[in-house]
């Protein structure tokens, strides 16, 4: 069990680095899919089965497909930023990310009363999740449905081709 966590973490971090730094856009999108699958594996390890399944369904099944479709439609495969002299600007980005990482790690280490692992085996039934979602979390549920409808309509309208006005 312990090895599983370290292997999955290595896969997640390695593919995330590849996803944001590779020159070829398709490889970036596919490495991002590997990151999403690794995150889902981590959710299964943390005994959140339902969320792991939702992660695979939505991120790998829909978001990654959307990203690949957009890459294909915009035809900019070898990203045009790799001209001479532009690579050194990455040092600013690395510096910022390292500062943020340092702040996060320092704040994690300074916590004294983080919880320990209480129960070794906990399974949440989907019936309980559904009931909770429709009683305590009813307002976010309705708002999410409105949001998804708005995203659906907005996405279609934004990417609709303008009809040529001909007489």
């Amino acid at each position, binding site marked *: 069990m*312990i090895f599983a*966590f370290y292997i999955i*973490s290595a896969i*997640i*971090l390695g593919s*995330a*680095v590849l*996803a*944001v*730094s590779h020159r070829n*856009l398709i490889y970036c*999108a596919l490495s*991002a899919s590997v*990151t*999403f699958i690794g*995150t889902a594996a*981590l*959710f299964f390890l*943390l005994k*959140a089965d339902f*969320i792991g399944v*939702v992660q695979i369904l*939505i*991120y790998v099944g829909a*978001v990654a497909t*959307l*990203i690949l479709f*957009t890459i294909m439609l*915009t035809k*900019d495969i070898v*990203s*045009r*930023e790799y001209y001479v002299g532009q690579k050194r600007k990455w040092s*600013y*980005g*690395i510096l*910022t*990310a*390292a500062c*943020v*990482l340092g702040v*996060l*790690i320092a704040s*994690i*280490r300074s916590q004294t009363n*983080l919880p320990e*692992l*209480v*129960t070794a085996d*906990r399974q*949440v039934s989907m019936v*309980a*999740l559904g009931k909770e979602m429709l009683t305590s*979390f009813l307002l976010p549920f309705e708002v*999410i449905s409105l*949001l*998804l409808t708005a*995203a659906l309509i*907005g996405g279609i309208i*934004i990417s609709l081709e303008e009809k040529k006005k001909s007489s």
Partner: protein
Amino acid sequence: MSIPITHYLFVSAALFAIGLFGAITRRNAIIILIGIEIMMNAANINLIAFWRYSDGTRLTGQLFTFFGIAIAAAEVAVGLAIVIAVYRVYKSTNVNEVHDMKG
């Protein structure tokens, strides 16, 4: 001999930093969106880790993550629609080249 929660939090923080690096440095709009998605994944790992290491009375962690995944999916859909619409006008997905207001 189980994994302390700090390991999960370190992984989440590192993933967040990598996503941040991608969103800041790259100039292709699609890779920026990928960076944003990676950052959201990091936040979800954090939420589920805290849910797991707490007592199991509340399901807030899981449901929060569920709504977060839904929001991220909606956002990436609209974001990619905008990228396609901008590409039609400027013929480029490089965010440095999109600098006029009139389309």
